[in-house]
C-alpha cells in the first residue's frame, strides 16, 4: 500500500499489515480483558462483511447498529463500510417510537443489535418498519426460543461470512477498492432541540481528516488507550472510539457493563478520556461525597492540599511553574504524592495524558478542579455536522472562558448577528433526505451555520456565548447573551435556575431560584431557621448571599469588553421553584424564557421600575395534581456593577 | 482381687476430684456455651489465693471466704471484660479467650502470691482408714474418702440449688435456649456472673482438696487436662455425666496403669483417658449423657 489510506476499511487493512500483533481492541468479558489484535479484527471484519454481503447489504445501503459499546458492533460498522454501505448507529436507550422514526427515515433493512433488550424493541417496531427484515444479535442470551425468522446470531454470520470469503476470495478486496473517501461512511442522527432528528451524512474523508487533525494537534500515537463507554450514536464516541482509533491505530477498550464503568476505567487507566461536563460533575460530586465520610485527619489533609492545588495547580499544569514559588512547588509535589496522585489513581486517571470535555458549558470550579490535580482537561467545540472538528484548547494555553483556537484547516467567520460560521475539513456532506435543512445550514459559499453566537477574544480564542437566536441587544446596542449569564449564575451551587431579561431593554435583570439543598445547608450552619422554599428564598441573608454571587458574575462580565455592558443591574429571588409541571421549564429542564417573562410580567416590570417590593400571586400545580396559589411579597435588589475594563484604562 | 479392689477404690476416689473440676466446667458450658479451658487455672488461682491469704495470718475460715470473694470478683470481671465483649462471636473464639484467661491467671497467681509450692493443711491425714485396713485389709485413704464426701455434698448442694431456687431455674432456662431466656426477661449477664462465681467456688473447693493432697503448685493447672476426657465421656452439658465420667476416668486410668502400664513401660496415665475418651467418641459422639444433635439444613 503506497498511498495514504483514505477510507476506514483501508485504514484497517493498513493497521493489520503494519502492526498485526498489536492489540486493537479489548472488552471486559468473563472477568478478564479479552483482547483482539489488528490482524484478528481485520479478519473478523472481513468475515462480517462477507456475511452482510450474503445477506444482501449493498453499496449505499444503511446498516443500523444498536447497543452498548461492544467490539463486534464497531466491527460491523467497518464491515458495512467495506461494502460501501453506511453505518447508522442508534441511541441504545432510545424508546421504541424514537427508534421507529430513524429506522423508517434511513430505510433500514438490516440491523445489528446487542442483546435481547434491543431485539425486543425492534421486533415491537416491525409492523411500523416493514422494511426491517433482518436483525443480527451479538449476545444470544435469552433468545434461544424466539424462533423469529428475522433473527440471526452474529456468530452464525461470522461463520458463514468466513466460508463465503473463502469461496469468493477477491470479492471483498474489490469492494474495498471501489470505495472512495467521498463516500458516506456513517450517518449520525442529531437529536435536534426542535423538530425531527436529522441524519447527518459524514464521509470517510471528513471523519478521517478530522481525526488526523485532532491526532496531530494533540500528538496521539498508537500507544494511546481509550475506554469507550459513551453512546455509539454520539458523534464524540464515533470520532474518538472509531475514527481516531482507526486513523491513529490505538487500542480501544469496552467496559463490562454500564455498572462497571468506573471500575473498568480504573483497571484500564486510559491515556485519554472524553466526557461531557455532566460526567465530570458527577465524578466530582462523588469525590466530595466520599471525602465527607473520611476521618477528620484525612479531610483536613485533603482540604489543605486541595487549597494548594487551587492556588497553584492550574499554573503548574499550564507550564507556568516559573511563576509559582519554590515553597508552593514543593507543597504541590507533596500534595501530588499524598492526594492528587492517589486521587487520579482511584478515578482511573493516573495515566491520563489528555481529557476533553465539550457539548455544554463547564463550570469554572469543575474545570479548575481537574486541571489543578494534574489532569490536562481541555474543552473542545464542534458539532455532529463538523465531526467535532472546529476548535480546541491548545495544551498550555487553556482559557476557561473559551473553547480554544480553530484547529488546523478550520476557518471561522463571525456573522453580523454574532453567529459562528465554520469551514472545516469535517463538514457534513448533507442531511439525509433533507435538502431544505442542508441548504439552511450549509450556505453556497460552504459555510456551516452553527447556530451558536460567539466571538474571538484578543488572543484569538473563540468564545461561545449563547444560541444565536437567543442573543439580543440592550437598548444601547450592547450584546446580550441570556444563556451565558444564566450559566454563569448557575455555576454557583446556591443557584439552581436563573432567567435573564434584557433584549430590547435598558439593562439586564434576572430571576433566581435558590438550590434548596445547598442554601438550606448553608442556612443551617448559620443557625438560620426557615420553613420551606418560599420562606428561605425571602430571607435577607439569602438575598445577601445571592447578591454576592451576582456581584461576582458582574465582575467577570466587566472584564469582557463585548459583554461588559450587560451586567446584571437588578435581581430577585422567585417565591417558587420553576417547574416543568407549570410549563416554566422543558422536560429536559431548560428555561422557557418567553413563557416565564409572560407569566411573571408584573415582576419583570417591577425589576425595570425602581420598586423595592412587589406582591405576586401565582397558581401552582402540586405533585398530587391539586392546584393552589402561592402569594408573596418579593424583594427586589439592586446589584453592584463594575466599570468596564476598557473604560477604566481609558 | 483385693489388689484390684484397692486400685479401683483409689481410682474412684481420685476420679471424684476429676469430677469436681469437670463440674465447674459443665456449669459454665451449660449456662453460656463457653468451653472454659481456664477451669484448671481457676483451680490453681483459687488455691494459690487461699494459701496466700492464709499466709498473711488470716484465720482459716476467713481465708476461705476471702478466696471465695476473689473468685467472685474474677467471675464478675470475666463476664464484664471478656464474655460480654465476645457475645455473638463463634464458640471457638470464646474458647480461645478462655485459653487466654488461663494464661493470664497462671501469670497473675504467682505474680501476686509467689510461686513456691505450698502446703494446705485441712486437718485430715492422708493415711489408710484403720477399720478397712484391719477388717478387709483394704488400703483406702482417709483423705480421699473425706474429699469424696465433700464432693458429694457439693454436688448435692448444687443439684438442690439448680432445682429449687429461682436463680437455678433461670440458669437452666438459659442453658436450654439463650434467645428464649432473653425474651422472657432473664438477665443473661447476671446469670453468667453467678455461674462464673459458682464455678469459681467449685474451683476453690477443688483447689483446696488437690492442694491438700499434692501441695499448691503450678501443676494444679494441669488438672484441667484430666477433666477434659471426663467431659468427653460424660458430655459437656451433663452434671451427672461429669460425676460418672470422673469416676470412670479415675478408675480406668489407675487400673490401666497397673494392669497394662508395665507392657509399655508405664506412665500411661497421662494419655490413657484421652484414648479411652476418643474410642468412646467414635461410638457415641455426644457423650454418655449428652444430647443428640441433628444437623438442620
Amino acid at each position: 500500500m503506497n498511498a495514504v489510506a483514505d477510507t476506514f476499511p483501508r485504514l484497517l487493512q493498513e493497521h493489520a499489515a503494519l502492526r498485526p500483533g498489536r492489540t486493537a481492541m479489548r472488552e471486559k468479558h468473563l472477568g478478564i480483558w479479552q483482547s483482539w489484535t489488528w490482524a484478528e479484527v481485520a479478519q473478523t471484519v472481513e468475515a462480517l462483511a462477507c456475511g452482510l454481503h450474503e445477506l444482501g447489504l449493498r453499496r449505499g445501503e444503511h446498516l443500523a447498529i444498536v447497543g452498548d459499546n461492544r467490539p463486534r458492533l464497531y466491527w460491523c460498522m467497518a464491515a458495512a463500510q467495506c461494502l460501501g454501505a453506511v453505518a447508522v448507529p442508534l441511541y441504545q436507550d432510545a424508546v421504541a417510537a424514537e427508534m421507529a422514526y430513524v429506522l423508517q427515515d434511513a430505510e433500514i433493512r438490516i440491523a445489528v443489535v446487542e442483546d435481547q433488550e434491543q431485539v425486543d424493541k425492534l421486533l415491537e417496531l416491525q409492523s411500523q418498519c416493514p422494511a426491517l427484515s433482518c436483525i443480527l444479535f451479538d449476545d444470544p442470551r435469552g433468545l434461544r426460543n424466539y424462533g423469529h425468522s428475522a433473527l440471526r446470531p452474529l456468530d452464525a454470520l461470522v461463520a458463514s461470512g468466513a466460508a463465503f470469503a473463502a469461496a469468493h476470495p477477491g470479492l471483498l478486496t474489490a469492494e474495498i477498492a471501489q470505495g472512495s473517501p467521498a463516500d458516506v461512511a456513517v450517518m449520525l442522527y442529531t437529536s435536534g432541540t426542535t423538530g425531527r432528528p436529522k441524519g447527518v451524512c459524514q464521509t470517510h474523508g471528513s471523519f478521517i481528516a478530522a481525526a488526523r487533525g485532532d491526532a496531530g494537534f494533540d500528538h496521539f500515537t498508537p500507544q494511546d488507550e481509550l475506554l469507550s463507554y459513551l453512546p455509539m450514536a454520539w458523534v464524540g464516541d464515533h470520532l474518538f472510539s472509531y475514527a481516531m482509533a482507526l486513523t491513529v491505530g490505538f487500542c480501544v477498550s469496552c467496559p463490562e457493563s454500564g455498572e462497571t464503568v468506573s471500575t473498568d476505567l480504573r483497571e484500564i487507566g486510559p491515556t485519554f478520556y472524553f466526557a461531557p461536563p455532566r460526567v465530570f460533575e458527577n465524578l466530582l460530586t462523588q469525590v466530595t461525597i466520599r471525602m465527607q465520610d473520611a476521618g477528620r485527619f484525612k479531610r483536613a489533609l485533603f482540604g489543605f492540599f486541595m487549597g494548594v492545588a487551587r492556588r497553584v495547580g492550574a499554573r503548574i499544569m499550564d507550564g507556568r511553574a516559573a511563576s509559582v514559588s519554590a515553597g508552593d512547588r514543593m507543597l504541590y509535589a507533596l500534595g501530588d504524592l499524598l492526594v492528587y496522585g492517589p486521587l487520579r489513581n482511584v478515578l482511573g486517571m493516573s495515566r491520563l495524558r489528555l481529557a476533553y470535555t465539550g457539548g455544554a458549558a463547564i463550570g469554572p470550579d469543575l474545570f479548575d478542579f481537574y486541571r489543578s490535580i494534574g489532569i490536562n482537561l481541555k474543552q473542545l467545540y464542534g458539532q455532529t455536522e463538523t465531526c467535532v472538528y472546529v476548535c480546541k484548547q491548545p495544551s498550555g494555553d487553556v482559557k476557561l472562558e473559551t473553547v480554544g483556537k480553530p484547529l488546523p484547516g478550520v476557518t471561522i467567520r463571525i456573522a453580523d448577528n454574532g453567529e459562528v460560521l465554520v469551514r472545516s475539513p469535517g463538514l457534513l456532506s448533507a442531511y439525509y433526505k433533507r435538502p431544505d435543512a442542508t441548504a439552511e445550514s450549509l450556505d453556497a459559499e460552504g459555510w456551516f451555520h452553527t447556530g451558536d453566537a460567539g466571538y474571538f477574544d484578543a488572543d484569538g480564542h473563540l468564545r461561545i456565548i449563547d444560541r444565536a437566536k437567543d442573543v439580543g441587544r440592550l437598548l444601547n446596542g450592547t450584546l446580550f447573551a441570556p444563556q451565558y449569564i444564566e450559566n454563569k449564575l448557575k455555576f454557583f451551587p446556591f443557584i439552581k435556575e436563573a432567567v435573564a431579561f434584557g433584549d430590547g431593554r435598558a439593562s439586564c435583570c434576572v430571576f433566581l431560584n435558590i438550590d434548596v439543598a445547598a442554601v438550606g445547608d448553608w442556612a443551617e450552619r448559620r443557625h438560620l431557621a426557615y420553613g420551606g422554599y418560599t420562606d428561605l428564598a425571602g430571607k435577607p441573608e439569602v438575598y445577601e448571599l445571592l447578591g454576592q454571587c451576582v456581584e461576582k458574575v458582574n465582575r467577570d462580565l466587566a472584564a469582557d469588553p463585548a459583554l461588559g455592558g450587560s451586567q446584571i443591574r437588578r435581581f430577585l429571588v422567585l417565591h417558587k421553584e420553576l417547574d416543568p409541571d407549570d410549563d416554566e421549564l422543558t422536560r429536559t429542564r431548560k428555561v422557557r424564557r418567553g413563557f416565564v417573562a409572560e407569566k411573571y410580567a408584573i415582576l419583570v416590570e417591577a425589576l425595570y421600575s425602581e420598586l423595592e417590593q412587589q406582591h405576586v400571586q401565582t397558581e401552582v400545580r402540586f405533585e398530587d395534581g391539586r392546584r393552589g396559589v402561592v402569594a408573596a411579597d418579593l424583594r427586589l435588589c439592586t446589584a453592584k456593577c463594575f466599570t468596564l475594563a476598557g473604560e477604566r484604562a481609558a | 482381687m483385693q489388689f484390684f479392689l484397692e486400685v479401683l477404690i483409689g481410682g474412684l476416689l481420685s476420679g471424684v476430684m476429676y469430677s469436681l473440676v469437670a463440674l465447674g466446667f459443665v456449669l459454665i458450658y451449660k449456662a453460656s456455651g463457653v468451653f472454659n479451658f481456664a477451669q484448671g487455672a481457676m483451680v490453681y488461682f483459687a488455691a494459690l489465693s487461699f494459701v496466700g491469704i492464709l499466709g498473711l495470718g488470716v484465720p482459716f475460715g476467713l481465708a476461705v471466704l476471702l478466696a471465695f470473694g476473689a473468685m467472685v470478683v474474677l467471675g464478675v470481671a470475666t463476664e464484664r471484660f471478656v464474655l460480654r465483649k465476645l457475645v455473638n462471636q463463634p464458640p471457638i473464639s470464646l474458647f480461645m479467650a478462655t485459653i487466654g484467661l488461663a494464661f493470664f491467671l497462671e501469670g497473675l497467681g504467682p505474680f501476686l502470691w509467689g510461686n513456691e509450692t505450698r502446703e494446705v493443711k485441712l486437718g485430715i491425714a492422708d493415711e489408710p482408714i484403720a477399720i478397712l485396713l484391719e477388717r478387709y485389709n483394704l488400703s483406702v485413704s482417709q483423705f480421699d474418702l473425706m474429699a469424696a464426701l465433700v464432693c458429694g455434698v457439693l454436688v448435692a448442694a448444687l443439684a438442690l440449688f439448680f432445682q429449687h431456687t429461682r436463680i437455678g431455674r433461670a440458669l437452666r432456662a438459659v442453658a436450654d435456649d439463650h434467645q428464649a431466656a432473653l425474651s422472657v426477661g432473664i438477665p443473661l449477664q447476671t446469670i453468667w456472673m453467678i455461674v462464673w462465681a459458682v464455678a469459681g467456688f467449685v474451683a476453690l473447693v477443688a483447689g483446696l482438696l488437690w492442694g491438700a493432697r499434692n501441695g499448691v503448685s503450678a501443676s494444679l493447672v494441669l488438672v484441667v487436662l484430666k477433666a477434659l476426657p471426663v467431659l468427653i465421656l460424660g458430655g459437656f452439658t451433663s452434671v451427672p455425666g461429669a460425676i460418672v465420667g470422673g469416676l470412670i476416668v479415675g478408675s480406668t486410668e489407675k487400673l490401666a496403669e497397673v494392669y497394662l502400664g508395665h507392657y509399655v513401660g508405664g506412665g500411661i496415665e497421662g494419655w490413657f483417658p484421652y484414648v479411652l475418651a476418643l474410642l468412646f467418641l467414635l461410638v457415641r459422639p455426644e457423650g454418655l449423657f449428652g444430647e443428640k444433635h441433628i444437623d438442620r439444613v
Partner: protein
Amino acid sequence: MSAPQGAVLLEVQGISLSFGGVRALNDISFDVRAGEIRAIIGPNGAGKSSMLNVINGVYHPQQGVIVFRGQPRARMNPHAAAFQGIARTFQNIALFKGMSVLDNLMTGRCTRMHRHFLWHALHLGPARREELAHRARVEEIIDFLEIQHIRKTPVGRLPYGLQKRVELGRALAAEPSLLLLDEPMAGMNVEEKQDMCRFVLDVNEQFGTTIVLIEHDMGVVMDISHRVVVLDYGRKIGDGTPEQIRANQEVIDAYLGVSH
C-alpha cells in the same frame, strides 16, 4: 406452559422419614421428568425441605426407594449425589461465608477437578491449566447470573438477594442434571423475585436442567413450574399441572383456602 414429556429422571417411591417419633414424610411418591420444572409446595412444616434432603441424601428415609436415572437405591449420600449430577441450594443460604463469590462458585466445580494436591502446591502444569479452564467456565456462570460486579467480594458482605443468586451460581457451576432449589425466592423483593424467576427459567431452557423447586409464592410456582406436588403434614395431597392443582379441592382446603 406445556410440560416436557421427557423420560423420568427421578422417581421417589413410598418415602417415609421420621425424626425420633415425629413423622416428617409419610409414604410420598412422585416422579420428575427430564427437562421439567417440578414444584413442591405446601404449608410450613409440610416436609418440603425434608423431601429435598432425602433426594440428595442429607437425610436417610426409613422406608422407600429413590430411583435416579433408573438406578433404585434406599438412600442417597450427599457426596455420591453430587457426583451423580444432583446440585442444590438451601433454604437458609449455605454459602461459604469466608470466601469470595468467585471462590464459592469454583467450589461448585470440585467434582470435576481431579488434580493431586501436590500439583496445587506447585501451582504448575496440569493443576494450573485445570484451574484456569474451570475459572473460564465459572466466569460464564457469573456472566449468566449477572454478578460480574461482585466477583471478588466476600459473600458475607453481600445483601441477601445477591447471596441467593450466588448460591444458585454455585449449584450451576456443577453443571447438574438435576437442580434442587429450596425456596430460591424466599425473602426477596418483587424485583429480585422477577430476576430469580428469569434465571430459573433460563437455566431450564438454556441448559436443559431439570429443576425441583420448593417455593412459597404461589404466583411464582404456578407461573414457572410444569408440574406441582402438594405436601401437607408429610402427606402428598395433590400432584399435577398447575391448572389441576388449582382445581384440586383437597389442596384448596388444606392450603390455598387458608388465608396466606
